[in-house]
């Protein structure tokens, strides 16, 4: 499972993707993924908010994650 990182999320993690290797404990849902991120990178808890996108759509906390999904961390957007 690979996570795409953008904006400040990339700065917090220090790179633009995170690979969760198949044999580690993979998050089963968006909520679990968020918990995992905050545990590994406490700076995520300092953000105004952050969302998760699954296959380039905003995903609620209860969305289930599959191994082949494209998953992205979406910090507060600020286009325009």
């Amino acid at each position, binding site marked *: 499972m690979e996570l795409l990182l*953008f904006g400040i999320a990339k700065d917090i993690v220090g790179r633009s993707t995170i690979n969760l290797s198949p044999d580690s404990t993979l998050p089963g849902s968006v909520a679990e993924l968020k918990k995992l991120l905050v545990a590994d990178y406490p700076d995520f808890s300092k953000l105004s908010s952050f969302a998760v996108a699954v296959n380039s759509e905003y995903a609620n906390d209860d969305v289930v994650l599959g191994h082949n999904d494209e998953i992205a961390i979406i910090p507060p957007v600020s286009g325009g």
Partner: protein
Amino acid sequence: MEEPILEIVDELNVSGVYKELSHPASGGICVFIGAVREFTNNEEVVALEFETYKTMALKEMQKTVVQASEKWPFNKVVVRHVVGVKKVEDPVVVVGVSSAHRDACFPACRYIIDTLKQTVPIWKKEIFRNKEVWVSAHP
């Protein structure tokens, strides 16, 4: 609504937008251009840097223009946003809508830029002389 023009670009040329929006049934065209301002809270901005999650950004732009077209009837729409480093007065986003009457193109254009700023995955970093700040990242 004709097929919308939705793009993420490195360089934004706004002078041709009118031609893209011209349509024989459109009596009104409303265009919004966002540009880099020199000062934010009295601090001089050297540049803005924009980054995007492109596939998702284009999907969200599409959703936004479809929502707008359900609220107001219009003929053509253009949404184009830059990525990369932009300097003061550079245009960074253009939203244009053409419709039969101005009662439709004004609110549709406003709705699209407002919604874009809330939902489209584009991030802006303000580059000051001695620091860089991701806009809206922190409370």
